[in-house]
């Protein structure tokens, strides 16, 4: 097989793969939006608001990371779950002598606190220095109603949209391969 035939076969293979991925993406998006519409139907509060940016938690920093690799010739990307760092933990500092007795939250100062409760708990925490609470991974669906009011259709919608992420990764990597093959041919 000559080199050109190999390139053409690679190109055809990647185009076919791209087409298939695009079809899967379309199906997942269609199911996702359909389930989202159904979730709005099942949301008893939907008279005043639909599931969307109205519910977003602006303090949420996301749980996925995209890594772009430009070292290889094909410019690949990979999407993976963000590792939770220790510096994101909440620390209780010993030297807080203020009468308000607030807990310093490094990430978010808008957490509402019960100040009276802190005065009694401060004496207990002063014994252990710089006690660090474990960081709990937050499912983004909780910003739409936490534990009790999330309808199953919204969870299904989340599953549909989450299944798109590996598809997107493959689509972009395949597209970059196609671009490389065509650029090399030119």
């Amino acid at each position: 097989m000559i080199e050109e035939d190999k390139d053409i076969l690679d190109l055809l293979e990647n185009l076919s793969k791209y087409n298939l991925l695009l079809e899967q993406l379309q199906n997942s998006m269609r199911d996702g939006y359909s389930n989202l519409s159904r979730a709005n139907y099942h949301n008893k509060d939907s008279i005043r608001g639909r599931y969307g940016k109205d519910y977003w938690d602006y303090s949420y920093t996301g749980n996925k990371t995209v890594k772009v690799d430009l070292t290889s010739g094909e410019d690949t990307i990979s999407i993976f779950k963000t590792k939770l760092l220790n510096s994101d933990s909440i620390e209780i500092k010993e030297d807080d002598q203020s009468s308000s007795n607030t807990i310093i939250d490094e990430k978010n100062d808008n957490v509402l606190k019960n100040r009276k409760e802190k005065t009694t708990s401060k004496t207990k925490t002063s014994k252990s220095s710089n006690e660090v609470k474990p960081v709990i991974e937050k499912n983004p669906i909780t910003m739409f109603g936490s534990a009790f009011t999330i309808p199953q259709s919204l969870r299904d919608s989340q599953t549909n949209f989450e299944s798109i992420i590996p598809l997107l990764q493959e689509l972009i990597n395949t597209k970059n391969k196609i671009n490389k093959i065509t650029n090399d041919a030119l």
Partner: protein
Amino acid sequence: MEGVYFNVDNGFIEGVVRGYRNGLLTSNQYLNLTQCDTLDDFKLQLSSTDYGNFLSSVATEGLTTSIIQELASQKLYQEFNYIRNQTRRFNKKFMDFITYGYMIDNVTLMITGTIHDRDKAEILQRCHPLGWFDTLPTLSVATDLESLYETVLVDTPIAPYFSNCFDNAEELDDLNIEIIRNKLYKAYLNDFYNFISSELPEPAKEAMQDLVVFEADRRSINIALNSLQSEDIAPDLKRELLPDLGKLYPIATAHLAEAQDFETVRAIVGSVYEYKGILESGNLEDHFYKYEMELCRDAFTQQFAVSTIWAWMKSKEQEVRNITWIAECIAQNQREKINNYISVY
């Protein structure tokens, strides 16, 4: 004898409500809507119903399902406020009770929006108009539940419902706010039920008791099912959240608090005749909506009863959900799912 003096104060109101009820979309009208190809056709079909030209000010290019839902809801609020302005004595209190549920939603919405770093103006736009009270915007400035209560909520009609909520005021995150919301709603349902039982005459009392009892059971089943997905909810906490009334109370409710898997919840719910099979097939919320609409339709068979106001209100909300769903299916070209709406009239 309930009909003898009812019309003195309430005849006009019941007449208006029954007029609104006759304007609810029928099965044939829904069929016509499902056959529309575009949202413009949909708008045209709706103009021949009680909705009239409510979309006349919206250009074809700007017509979206959100706008349809918003304007249909506004029509509902206007009609509700019109009825509310005509009421007096215990009927006024009854209409006020209907709004307390929305007030609870608005309070939790303001607190949640604050901890989510949302702008106050944005959150206020999302508040339910029927649950509005004058001091609602000030909820965004307080920093913990006790000060919220002392500065703002103590003067609201829902103040008595906060008596059991301060245990969860350590740190207001999404879960704790949701727990507080469910406790408030539990207290509200109890209060509403007591008001109905003591103040409303027959036959409104019987019809409203059935409707409020169903609401309590729906919340119990939803709490029991949704809490299975979270490990942070202990049986004691669940017991505090499950309403103290309904067909599931007290035996099934006590078992639901202890249930740890779906099969157990299904067996417990199936032990109550009215909810037998509700978890067997289909979507649970659809079953609830259908049952609620049947109760509302039956409420209209009683004359001289203010329960028709609640029944009309819930039927109208369901209608707005239905037309929004049909519009979404048209917009997304998902014709195979377009008939998944609830119509009982």
